[in-house]
């Protein structure tokens, strides 16, 4: 009896990779996507079938972790990679991706504002962007913080969920935000903030999860986060805080992997993402669309755009490492 069960399991175990294999046929476009794009809950579930029907090109979507993990994977795989297109690399890490990408002058570029085009050679083309912001629970009974400096006020002791810049791009976003704003004096902001942090989570998802579970009334996230709650929970309880000092922006790009043998298909995919895909991506990712002609649902009224935005495209790896080291020293004291 035991032998039979074991045999059945071995047969079943052979069937699993075989069925996985059936999905990856020769003539398909392989797209590496970050988590918020792939999967049944991301925009991919709707967009990929739409694209396949429209163009007749089959797409194999590979979920490759968050934006930075995906980038690391492309670096690690190098020329061995199966990917033809990669979607979701952010401007602050773009310099690491350029060696693996080839330029594409998409006709849609004319509808994309110049300030978003962080790569003049168009190896990475922006498809959406967002601004880091603190989101607060307006029903928590705390006073609404007025500015980034105001957040350091002692009344917010243990009320803020931060994210570790060593393990998360959102966490790094806040660190660069304070660096762009205060220069070398960014340390003072963090010193003052130390007691106000309930926890420093490892990633955005655990931080935001803690927030929605009601663990603390303020969390580091994006200006667009309230859109999700308006559309899915029908509540305006969670609001993004727009600070007068300005906000750190993050721009997400899509690009073609160098040496692909599916260049035409890859171009068609990118054009599709930059036109038909824009509204769905913006809604699912809670980001602003890069294409300025996109029509958005009313819920986006709850995603106020700041007047002042910084980008960190120019900060190189060494400087970034140094800032992180200083941060670690400061917070570990």
């Amino acid at each position, binding site marked *: 009896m035991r032998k039979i069960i*074991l045999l059945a399991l071995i047969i079943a*175990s052979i069937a699993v990779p075989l069925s996985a294999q059936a999905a*990856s046929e020769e003539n398909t476009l392989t797209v590496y996507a970050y988590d918020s794009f792939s999967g049944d809950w991301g925009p991919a579930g709707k967009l990929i079938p739409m694209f396949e029907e429209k163009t007749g090109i089959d797409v194999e979507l*590979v*979920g490759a972790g968050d934006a930075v*993990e995906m980038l*690391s994977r492309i670096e690690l795989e190098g020329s061995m990679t199966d990917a033809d297109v990669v979607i979701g690399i952010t401007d602050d890490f773009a310099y690491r991706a350029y060696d693996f990408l080839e330029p594409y002058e998409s006709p849609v570029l004319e509808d994309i504002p110049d300030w978003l085009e962080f790569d003049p050679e168009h190896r990475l083309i922006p498809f959406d962007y967002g601004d880091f912001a603190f989101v607060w629970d307006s029903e928590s009974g705390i006073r609404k913080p007025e500015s980034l400096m105001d957040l350091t006020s002692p009344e917010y002791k243990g009320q803020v969920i931060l994210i570790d810049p060593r393990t998360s791009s959102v966490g790094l976003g806040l660190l660069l935000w304070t660096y762009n704003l205060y220069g070398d004096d960014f340390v003072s902001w963090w010193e003052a903030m130390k007691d106000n942090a309930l926890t420093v989570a490892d990633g955005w998802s655990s931080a935001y999860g803690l927030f929605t579970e009601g663990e603390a009334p303020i969390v580091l996230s994006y200006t667009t986060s309230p859109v999700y709650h308006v559309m899915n929970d029908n509540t305006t309880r969670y609001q993004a805080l727009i600070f007068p000092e300005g906000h750190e922006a993050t721009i997400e790009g899509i690009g073609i992997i160098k040496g692909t043998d599916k260049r035409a298909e890859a171009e068609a995919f990118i054009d599709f993402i930059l036109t038909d895909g824009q509204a769905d991506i913006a809604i699912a990712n809670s980001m602003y669309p890069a294409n300025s002609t996109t029509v958005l649902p009313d819920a986006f009224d709850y995603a106020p755009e700041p007047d002042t935005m910084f980008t960190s495209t120019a900060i190189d790896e060494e400087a970034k490492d140094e800032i992180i080291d200083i941060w670690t020293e400061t917070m570990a004291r």
Partner: protein
Amino acid sequence: MDRNNGKIGLWSYRAGTIPAILLVTILFILPMALVFGSAIREGTLINSLEDASTYRILLFTVEEAFVSALVSTVAAIPFAAFFSRYRFPGRKAILALSGLSFTMPAILVVLGFVIWYGNNGYLNTLLEGIIGCKPLRILYSFPAIILAHAYLNFPIAFLIITSAWSGRPETEELAAYTLGKGRLWTFLHVTLPAIRGSAASSFALIFLYCFSSFAIVLVLGGQPRYYTLEAEIYRRVYIDADIPSAAAISIIALAATAIMLLIMPEGRREKRTSRKKRELKEAHGGSLIAAFFLVILILLFLLPPMVAIVYRSFHEKGGAFTTEHWVKGLNAGYGAMLSSFIIAFLSSYLSTSAASAIALYSAHSRSRLLPFFTTLPLAAGSVTIGLGLLIASSYIGSLIPLSADWIRYILLLAAHVMITLPFSVRTITPRAQAIPEVLRDSAYTLGMSSIRTIMKVEKPLLRSGRMKAFCFSFALSLGEVNATMMISLGRLTTLPALIYDLIGRYDYQSASALGTILLLEALIVFIIAEIGDKDGIS
């Protein structure tokens, strides 16, 4: 002791371990060599050794692992003492249940803790109804890390010590009582030294598990200085894509855990002189009341976070009942459930088989090297194992004409075998050591060949140990996520990987639904094991 007789058949024990040693060498040592080679070539090891922050992280990692292991093991001893002495209603159910929390992937423990113990968790909400405020501030502190680690690992200590304790007869204690010694004296001088081996063994295991803790330390700790070597390895691979520098940290971590394994005190070797085990006494009167209290204590500790997850899967944060997320979760999770089950079953079967060969050989030869060798994968941590196999996959791809998906699948299985093997070895070895030499010798005297002795005499004696090892391996594999994500690269999804994914979309409710399924699967395995374990010790 005259061991000449035992050595006659040593070659067949040795032969039995060859596949196991090959397994560890090919699937673990070679990939590690690739990882370490890169660290030394690129000079990152020297850099990391010269960096003060490395030592700060190392120090904290050792601290949290040590405290977690100590707390879990010490807390388990009184419970084990009682559970290995008395029989009472619900005893087996508790033993099966305590295996469950061990199955939970760390991220699910974090989830369960936040939902239950959180500032706005169910416990605080319940208390608010009684006293009007939310009084508890348990999470986001060092004690919260220890509590969560104890939650995951108390069952390891509890089950290992209970099983070892009930495996030895009470004759020595009875002798002590006859000599007029008190209960406390007997406990300290007779019982404690006798269970030292299993306590040390569970301490070492828990230390190693907590040494490679990551999500729990970062989320529940709440301070950037609570940061482990494993998190640093993860960061260097995933964020910086810098394998040589990640490998440097791996070497340092491995060196630290290897030292720890070598200095762990080894328990006195108990040779069982008869197959007779301790008879469990029926609990009545005072001991029944005590049993009741201990059961309540364990239930209060283990159940709430699990129940909170199950409850949360059916309820919106606001409290409204819904099954919508179950439908969503099941639709997305069907394939993942199947592949998780198959991988867990096959890898546990392989690791248990390999482990019994290794355990028998090391019991005969009194080798400490072999168990140490096979515990190395545990010391390396699952992230590093995944890393090594990932690097190796490109070499394998050029050697063997198999599709990339096949290679990933095989490597995934390999990773799970490596991750569960140390546990199997550590569970089975004490049982193998307890087999009296007399038994083996009499088998030879009766003219049995050494292979027949292994198959007919020794293997059956290891049965309950193998069963236990299989269950824990199964549970461990079911909850494993670090190496899985590293190797499968998004193509093969397992249940815990999908739960991670869902939490990543802050769909806590669907994650809770799949978490419930994971717990159910593990519960079924533990129940089957308890029924199948005819010896019925634990």
